């Protein structure tokens, strides 16, 4: 049986492009989900006005 290399290569290219695009879109959404779930940084909390101080700064009396 003679192999049709053009068809095989076309199939490989087709599958790799489609899989890559699916992977790219899925990875992008995975990144968005990960970002949404990560704990907020001090900068973001401060920006949203939710930053709570653990301690009050001590200022010695003069």
């Amino acid at each position, binding site marked *: 049986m003679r192999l049709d290399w*053009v*068809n095989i*290569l*076309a199939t490989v*290219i*087709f599958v*790799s*492009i*489609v899989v*890559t*695009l699916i*992977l*790219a*879109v899925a*990875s*992008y959404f*995975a*990144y968005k989900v*990960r*970002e949404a779930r990560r704990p907020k*940084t*001090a*900068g*973001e909390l401060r*920006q949203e006005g939710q930053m709570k101080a653990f301690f009050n700064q001590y200022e010695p009396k003069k």
Partner: protein
Amino acid sequence: METNKPVVRTPMSPRKQAIISILIILAVVILTVFMFRYPERLGPIAVSALVVTLASFLLLLILRHFVLIWFSFLHQRELSHDEPPEHYPFVSIIVPAFNEAEVIHASLASLLELRYPYYEIIAVDDGSTDGTYEKMREFEGNHYGVRVQVFRKENSGKADTLNYGIRRSRAPIVICMDSDSRLTPDALRYAIRQFTDPNVGAVAGNVKVINRHNIWTKLQALEYIEGLNIVRKAQAFFRSVNVIPGPMGIFRRTAIEGTGGYDSDTYAEDFDMTVKILADGWKINYEPKAVAYTEAPEELLDIIKQRYRWSRGILQALRKQKHLLTRTSGVITTPLSLWYMIFEGLVWPAMNIFSSLFFVYIALMFGMQKLLVMWWLLLTLLDVLIAVHAILMEKEDLRLAAYAVFYRFFYILIIDVTKVFATLEELVGLDMSWGKLARKGRI
């Protein structure tokens, strides 16, 4: 260095965001179903139009590559005649850092090994919580004539931290670098030679990936050599480099002060600063021998995070400087650089995805497998040739050229999808944060 700073735009309401996202997804699904269900209804005119578009894309791609190769070659030839500088001016190196305890030691240590006679180091901690400041303090003092000053301030973002360091520096030449980067011993000596031209306001360094451990970092290493540096080299022929990279930017103090310093209103402060310097009429050159090694993200999601921020940051800076796009006075290269950035950032990624999808569609629906194979072979051959050319010019590891096979149809496609999503999100004004990358301490 990366840090957190305020979002640039007022975010759109979640309801509006959801409606827009659903509409976009719906449009894509309907179009896809229609194209596969009723290919004959597309009509010969529509198919011809698509084929012409794709042919133009291919032509543009080939043209782009050859133009880049030609001008980068001319720049390289120019450099080979360059003389070393007659004198070495005093240089201040600014190292901003936010939670970079893993890498800050290696970064500062590399600065003490520079073969340069007269410089100072100013390290600024941007309110880190991981012990970065304590590691910086180990370097404070005088090291064989090199004064290292360490400062600590409240977290306020990278742009503000750089300005803080610049204000405390004294030299006529200022280097701004990232704390996850490492300069090679001769980087400074080579960079300085570009300032013999009094019209040069800044010089972009040559950034390379240091952690080439897996396929992602190897692909990024190739991207830095083939994709980013060759573009900078070509732009440098016209003295109009449009991005001075964060890991190594060398500035004339008068140029940086003339712009009023770094602004905190975009996520791409390096691109923003570059545009401001170009707009002031300064030339910006590139020095391939001023090498800085940087730690690239090692996982796919971290790459996406980084590119997402770059894309949105560039769009924010472009929006901010949009008046320059139509500027007719001054040097023509400034608006041209910005238009090129729009092309590379907005048009090119969408065209790349579109062409990939379209060729798959054509091959499937019209039985044109041969065309698909020819297209793939042509582009891959082009990428391999350019990779070899760029690697040889940089005297880099030739084995990286093998990764060019995966470069366009795998890596760049993923990056382009991220760019398109980032563009859409920037256009609808979605909320975003800086996106701190976890360091592995590879530098």
